[in-house]
């Protein structure tokens, strides 16, 4: 117990690692503790069945801030993102829509359903990029706090004003609409064909407990449009070797900067002295002390679990408890004997390397959501599939493939209670495969191994409360200066010397690493460490 650290980071997910790296870069002595034997949190790749590496949870990369890539020299440490620029959407009647990097091909393909939509499609992309640029400075800085009107708030306001000046009323209105509308309504202002609106609207619901017709989903749509790799907007990609390699690249950078990383060290609680955090206690009783403790765990786990409700201010505890973290998604990872086939898609089509979106109509998506609203998993779920082994053969044995299927909706709170997922897991897996088989006949015969993750598993294995992949729903009242709780949205917490650097802090989830970076810079600026 002799060594004391400047900072202890709880949790080796991408945000915890990023925060640790930035603090170490500023010369601080940092210890990072990870509960599991493997780093990455939900940004993890695991060899679930011999020879097959699954990116178990998070499966595509796009939101990672370019500045972080530069600052932490992640490319030098193994970050290599391979572009994923096709989206294939099959429909029930055997037809399909393929979109890709070729604008002329997109126009032709969309025109089969609506010539009008085909003309508007590129304009929509431009408009979204502009909106994304508008929102960027908000995502790139700590959230403004309207309850504190002081000089630094004013300076930040002026900075934002400069950014928004020169915008017309139309642009401001579009931005406000984006914040408040449903993905379906927003897209319907642009497009008429259900076959385009359906597949496009799904970016608005990923990770939310909302349907495509629920207000607030247009913002999530934008959140996904903000993705940028090497400065290109709306670019998604796969990390070479699996998503876990992103976390490992950050970890290598952190180690090189001097961060001490220990795995297999589950933190049981935050060590408190009065109302002040002094360090952590592990489950085996070991204690580590530091000037500050930074939690990369979600707000529920951090405050209700590791600090304890009895040590919190009553009002703050109440607000943390009502911070919504209803998990709504599951994951099915498949080891495949050979490539799946889709009618209308050539076996060697480059499109198979991209996103395969099972969202054949708006009604299909809504019915999937309706199931979840009343506590059942979707009988016919929405699915977003990728086959990473086509882009990076190293993740599967020669000739074999892995397929990652993101599934929605799978409500954490089943009608029978969350623990009943133990009984329903395989039925859920069956619903996924049965639905997929309607679009990819023969898929069942190709499955060598199936790995089903329910929200219950995401909680039990990966420590995500209620299986919420964003550490808290991305609903309007849980964003910006209200994430996770109003007046405590700038990484600092009411527990002295305890900070929050996970996705439960502004600007939220996805492999963005912005909360980790912003937390570190806020702490350094405040000379908290």
């Amino acid at each position, binding site marked *: 117990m002799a060594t004391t650290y400047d900072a202890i980071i709880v949790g080796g997910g991408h945000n915890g690692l990023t925060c640790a790296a930035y603090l170490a870069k500023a010369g601080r002595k940092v210890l990072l503790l990870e509960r599991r034997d493997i780093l990455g949190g939900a940004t993890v790749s695991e060899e679930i069945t011999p020879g097959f590496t699954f990116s178990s949870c998070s499966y595509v990369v796009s939101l990672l801030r370019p500045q972080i890539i530069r600052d932490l020299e992640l490319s030098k440490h193994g970050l290599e993102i391979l572009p994923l620029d096709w989206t294939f959407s099959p429909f029930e009647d055997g037809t399909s829509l393929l979109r890709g990097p070729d604008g002329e091909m997109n126009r032709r393909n969309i025109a089969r359903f609506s010539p009008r939509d085909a003309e508007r499609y590129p304009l929509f992309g431009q408009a979204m990029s502009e909106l994304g640029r508008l929102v960027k400075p908000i995502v790139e800085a700590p959230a403004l706090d309207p309850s504190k009107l002081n000089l630094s708030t004013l300076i930040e306001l002026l900075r934002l004003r400069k950014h928004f000046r020169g915008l017309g009323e139309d642009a401001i*209105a579009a931005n406000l609409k984006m914040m408040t509308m449903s993905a379906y309504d927003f897209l319907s202002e642009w497009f008429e064909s259900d076959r385009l609106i359906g597949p496009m609207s799904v970016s608005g619901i990923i990770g939310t407990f909302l349907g495509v017709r629920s207000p607030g989903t247009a913002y999530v749509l934008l959140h996904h449009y903000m993705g940028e790799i090497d400065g290109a907007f709306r670019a998604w990609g796969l990390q070479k070797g699996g998503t876990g390699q992103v976390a490992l690249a950050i970890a290598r950078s952190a180690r090189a900067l001097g961060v001490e990383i220990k795995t297999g060290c589950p933190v049981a609680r935050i060590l408190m002295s009065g109302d002040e955090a002094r360090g952590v206690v592990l489950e085996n009783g070991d204690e580590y002390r530091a000037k500050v403790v930074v939690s990369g765990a979600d707000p529920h786990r951090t405050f209700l679990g590791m600090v304890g409700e009895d040590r919190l201010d009553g009002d703050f505890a109440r607000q943390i408890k009502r911070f919504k973290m209803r998990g709504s998604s599951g994951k099915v990872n498949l080891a495949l004997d050979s490539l799946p086939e889709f009618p209308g898609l050539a076996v060697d089509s480059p499109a198979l390397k991209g996103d395969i979106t099972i969202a054949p109509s708006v009604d299909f998506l809504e019915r999937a959501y309706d199931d979840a609203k009343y506590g059942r998993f979707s009988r016919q779920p929405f699915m977003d599939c990728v086959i990473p082994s086509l882009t990076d053969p190293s993740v599967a044995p020669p000739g074999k493939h892995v397929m990652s299927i993101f599934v929605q909706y799978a409500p954490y709170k089943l009608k029978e209670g969350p623990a009943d997922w133990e009984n329903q897991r395989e039925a859920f897996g069956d619903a996924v495969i049965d639905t997929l088989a309607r679009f990819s006949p023969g898929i069942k015969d190709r499955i060598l191994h199936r790995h089903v993750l329910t929200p219950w598993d995401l909680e039990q294995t990966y420590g995500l409360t209620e299986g919420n992949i964003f550490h808290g729903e991305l609903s309007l*009242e849980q964003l910006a200066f209200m994430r996770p709780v109003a007046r405590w949205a700038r990484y600092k917490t009411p527990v002295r010397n305890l900070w929050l650097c996970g996705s439960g802090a502004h600007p939220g989830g996805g492999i963005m690493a912005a909360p980790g970076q912003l937390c570190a810079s806020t702490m350094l600026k405040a000379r908290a460490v």
Partner: protein
Amino acid sequence: MSGAIVIGAGHNGLVAGLSLARAGRAVTIVEKRGVVGGLCAATEIHPGYRVPGLLHDTTGVRRPVVAALGLSRYGLQFEDEAPSVLAAHSQHKGVVLHANAARSRDELEALHKGDGDGYAAWRAFLSRVRGFVARVLNERPPQMKPSSLAELWKLGVTGLALRRLGNADMLELLRVAPMCAADWLHEYFNDPLPSAALAAPAVTGAFLGPWAAGSAASVLLYECVRGAEVKGGPAALIESLREAFEAAGGTIRLEAEVARILVARGAVSGVQLADGSTLEAPLVLATCDPKRALLELLEPGALPLRVEEQIGVVRMRGTTAKVNLALDGQLAFRGREGERHARAVVADDVDDIERAFDAVKYRGCSKKPHLDVSVPSVRDASLAPSGKDVVSILAHFVPHDLEGGWSDAAREGFGDAVVEVLESVAPGTKGLIRAREVLGPADIEARYGLSGGHIHHGEHALDQLLFMRPTPALARYATPIAGLYLGGSGSHPSGGVTCQPGALAAQAILEG
């Protein structure tokens, strides 16, 4: 003296017409139907039984508006206090929610321990923010980009008023507004019934259920303007407005449907009626819905294309049906025999309302609709024969674009479903029905001229309120055509019987 034409003799048209007439304009109100009152006009559904037309709730009438117009001199009176609402239940006697939380305490605590306190806390929060919300609703919406110091000043003052709520209430208001009604109310109540009853106002005139984000804002707006009912209901309000308007020298022309708003050299010049005659005036205020006014009544091309496009995407999908019943006796709710209730909402829990909403997503009618029930004869016995009731029900949800189209069978099928639900909370009602009138969104559109059959002239949703209503460019009541103004429920502060859009439109005309 310059003339002015007001399109529509609903409450907003009458309020605006009266304000303009008092300011010395020669005002003619042209009304398509043969009666005054628009959605508030009463109808006789069966000999001796009269019901409010479409809207039956007058708790939202803005007192400052009617006070400024001196309507009490024309017979307008209010009840003494905000009315109670019965949250009816299909299995038990439900609970009566009074505006004064203390009076509901015992019943709520009996329903579930803690819910009486929850209701008191909820009402207390509302009463603290009420002043600020009312202030926003009483004024013309702010400009998105303040163009003058005066505008900037106004915005600043509103901002300060928000700050004056104190940090806790300000942050809570900002948190609650974009939430879903279900989540918000569940923070206060353990039993599902009170949440359902209080969430109910959120779904009237909205294409969303109580689990949809933004629905809390509708509850908030409804509750923050809610006061006492007008004595005699919507018809009495209309009657006082009509008398005052005529006393001010205004003219109402009934059965005068406008076919075209006339424009010459970028300025309005009058209207052409369906019979071919024209009325000339340099000022036209349209209180019909914005799509009808700007896309149907104007010559295509009269507006900039961008404005036409923005109006075109305003969402007005009607989801409300009106069901009127003439009863051969009095409506008695389960477990409440002998009690008289003028208002009830019917849904056992929030999920009941959400399920009712699910149907319209797929262009179907709810099998088990959610009901907003008014029994006007409780307060005004003259509306029905002695000892009998007339019942006015706003039923949710029905689609405007029903799969297969609206037919008599579809309409009556939905009427049957409404009666079944009412029977479940008021057993024995079925046998009392002497006459029934069912109006679906298509009927509402045909009778009242509402685009999409939408009772609020545009859905209540966060992106269609305040300075976004009906569109950013049209939110200040003026249009790009000189002399043409909007002043119906499609404008801020939106639908229901508030009289505020008409008053603010007149203010915009008179103050410039």
